[in-house]
């Protein structure tokens, strides 16, 4: 029971950290400053060492203040370098990161020489000590979360502007430099509080992964923040849980006391891997922006375009015999538009399964539904051609290709408007059918 309540406490703490870092990190990701979190967590080391030397104990708040001081110094240094030298931002971040961390390593060796026992080892700093979390740490995390929440609510629209269009913000007269510093300062606070818990590298991950993943689920900033916070919080809780003794017992893994054995996996990396899983699944499977969804959408579009090409070809071949629906041979189709036989066969089979055509042997016939659809496609094509000829002044023998590209993308209201306008201008030829005549000859034989 006691073990579980400790686990619960730690889960609460890591969830809070994940949620806060996720939300604030979203701004860093949007502002293209994702790696500033990495820099901040490295730059905290010298501050922690200095604070430790001054205070001679491991009071978390004291160490955090030290870390915050050098973190802010690092942000200042990067700002100065980017503004006044020819060094680019990426190199500036790298320089500050490595120099500060080097200074931290130097200070650390001094600290370790001068003090005995009870020292802040590099190992703990690098990987954090999730298991060592105490109730006071959870309180600090709650305070940090509230602090970040207040900042985000108070400066929501400013941060929004800054994240999406800095130049516009500057042109509107917002103090972009100050706002940037507030944003990065808040990030520094969160980083510094999280460092002792998950460690340097993994803190950077907590800042980047939820925000970068959340970006895939919505285009609305508020919702992105919410998704990032929830994902970060969930990653914290789930990662901690995976590292706790309980699942180890369930799955027959090494049953160990929490964080006691050297072989037991620390929660930090598991939290990050959980967050990474969220990120990866967002990239792949998010409903609209995800890679799979976009690939599917593109595939659907390609299928539709090919189907429409087929329908229009069938319509153009059937046109002389309307309102009869003549049988058309595959050879005619191939001569009309360059298909190769296997793919034409495939397209025809797809069209048949949708009830657009009827096939026997090598003959094809539009069904009534197919004819309607084909007429619609051809109407769009010809209206656009007429529009190009009459309004854009393009020669009639040049419009087929252009219309071919665009016809699949024209929304129905636009097509209707096009028809009305062309009719009003008297440019729609009077036709027995309701389809305008093609402004050019149909190449019946290729």
């Amino acid at each position, binding site marked *: 029971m006691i073990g579980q309540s400790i686990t619960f406490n730690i889960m609460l703490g890591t969830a809070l950290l994940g949620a806060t870092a996720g939300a604030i990190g979203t701004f860093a990701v949007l502002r293209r400053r994702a790696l500033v*979190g990495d820099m901040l967590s490295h730059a905290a080391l010298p501050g922690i060492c200095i604070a430790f030397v001054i205070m001679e104990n491991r009071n978390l708040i004291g160490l955090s203040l030290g870390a915050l001081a050098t973190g802010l110094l690092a942000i200042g240094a990067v700002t100065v370098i980017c503004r006044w030298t020819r060094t680019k931002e990426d190199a500036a971040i790298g320089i500050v990161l490595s120099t500060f961390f*080097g200074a931290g390593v130097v200070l650390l060796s001094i600290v370790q020489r001068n003090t005995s026992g009870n020292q802040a080892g590099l190992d703990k700093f690098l990987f954090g000590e999730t298991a060592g979390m105490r109730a006071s740490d959870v309180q600090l995390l709650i305070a940090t979360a509230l602090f970040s929440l207040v900042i985000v609510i108070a400066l929501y629209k400013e941060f929004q502007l800054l994240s999406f269009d800095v130049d516009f913000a500057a042109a509107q007269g917002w103090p972009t430099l100050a706002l940037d510093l507030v944003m990065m300062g808040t990030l520094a606070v969160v980083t510094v509080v999280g460092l002792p818990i998950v460690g340097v*590298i993994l803190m950077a991950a907590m800042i980047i992964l939820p925000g*970068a993943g959340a970006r895939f689920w919505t285009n609305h900033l508020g919702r992105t923040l919410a998704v990032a916070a929830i994902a970060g919080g969930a990653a914290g809780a789930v990662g901690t849980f995976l590292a706790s003794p309980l699942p180890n017992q369930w799955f027959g893994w090494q049953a160990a006391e929490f964080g006691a054995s050297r072989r037991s996996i620390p929660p930090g990396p598991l939290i990050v891997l959980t967050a*990474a899983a969220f990120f990866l699944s967002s990239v792949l499977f998010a409903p609209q922006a995800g890679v799979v969804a976009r690939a599917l959408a593109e595939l659907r579009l390609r299928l539709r375009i090919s189907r429409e090409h087929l329908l229009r070809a069938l319509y153009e071949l059937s046109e002389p015999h309307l309102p009869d629906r003549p049988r058309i041979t595959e050879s005619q189709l191939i001569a009309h538009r360059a298909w190769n036989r296997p793919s034409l066969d495939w397209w025809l089979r797809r069209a048949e399964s949708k009830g657009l055509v009827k096939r026997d042997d090598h003959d094809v016939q539009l069904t009534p539904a197919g004819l309607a659809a084909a007429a619609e496609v051809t109407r769009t094509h010809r209206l656009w051609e007429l529009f190009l000829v009459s309004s854009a002044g393009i020669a009639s023998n040049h419009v087929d290709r252009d219309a071919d590209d665009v016809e699949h993308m024209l929304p129905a209201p636009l097509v209707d408007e096009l028809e009305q306008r062309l009719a009003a201008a008297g440019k729609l030829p009077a036709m027995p059918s309701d389809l305008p005549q093609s402004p050019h000859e149909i190449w019946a034989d290729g």
Partner: protein
Amino acid sequence: MMLQLIAQFDWLEPFRSEVGQRIVLVGALTNVACALVGCYLVLRRMSLMGDAIAHAVLPGIVLAFLFSGSMNIVPLFVGAAAVGLLTTFLTQTLHQFGRVPTDAAMGAVFTSLFALGVVLLKRYITGVHFDVACVYEGSLTGVALDTFPLGGWEVPRQLLTVLPVVVLNLTAILLLWKEFKLSAFDPGLSTTMGYSATALHYLLMALVAVTSVASFQAVGSILVVAMLIVPPATAQLLCDRLSRMVLVACVFAIASAVGGYWLAHRWDVSPAGAMAVFAGGMYAVAVLFAPQYGIVSALVRNLQTSLRILREDLLSMLYRNEELGGRPLSASTAIAAVGGGWLARWAQAMLKRRGRLTVAADGLHLTPDGRERAKRLVRGHRLWEAYLVKHLGLPLDHVHAPADRVEHFINQPLRDELQKAVDDAQQDPHGREIPEFRL
């Protein structure tokens, strides 16, 4: 010779011990290996890719260790290079197909890989000294103590790893010098000319990964990052040619090994950390005092220009006053007329010290030398006015202000050309004489 020199000076004491010399040697070679490839990272604005790869190779190392069962360097190289390329590939792919911003993609990939490495490490590797903190910090001292005898010298075993990498990097850079150069400055042009910037990029990343692994044991990943980025960035502040930049970066890399070890010995601290700090310190000095791009140098240049303009304004004002036959201006009036403030006072003091004007009871007077110089300026000013009116057709009341700004930058050849362009006019458009001035 070198050793005698070292023996002579007290402050060179750290370099007397053989271990110290070995540390410097290994450190310098490692730093040079990093700086060589780092130049291209910095130029391609991919510096943080070095950071990412230096961290992300951890799972590669762990996997190579698991499969080979030893710390043999060859599988480690292969594993690291593979993961290094994977990092690059994943970052690129996430950016291209996932539409994740580059920096976020990079951060997501390397932190996840690093976490994976830690999990693998903790889960599957026991009993061997495989300390992640050590990967981070390195152990130059340990490396310097692990030696083998060669021709009467105790040679650090690490040299067998680092030296080939230095040679590899050097060979790659020299062989593909123009290709790397082109793709660093203009990847698009490089690709259109048939040298695929992407292929070169992946080659560079493989070199970075191999270099990182070779350097880990000695200096740790953080110094790898420092040496990949800091010396090249320092060199970039000092040079405008790639060849010089690479050379200077190598010099700084060696200097940070030497200086860093000196600091480390002095303070008795981690040599790798001290080398990073020393390199950072050199960068800071370059940021401030680089002749062309330093902040202080630029400030001094601006100050000098401002002073010169103020001096010239004072001189030409006094000349015009003489020309109009007015009473001599008092010092305070003159200073107020050119804008006032301490800069203007300083400019006036400089003029006096250089013998261009004298301060008498009734005010300021030009010396003959000062008058000649003033003539030169006023001549440039009025020629410019005449030119603007004649060739640009500007109205009379629009020509003084531009001429006032440009007069400080008109030299003798330009004055001669202007004189020709205005057909040796004797008067400016306002009807005032264009003073003759001959050297």
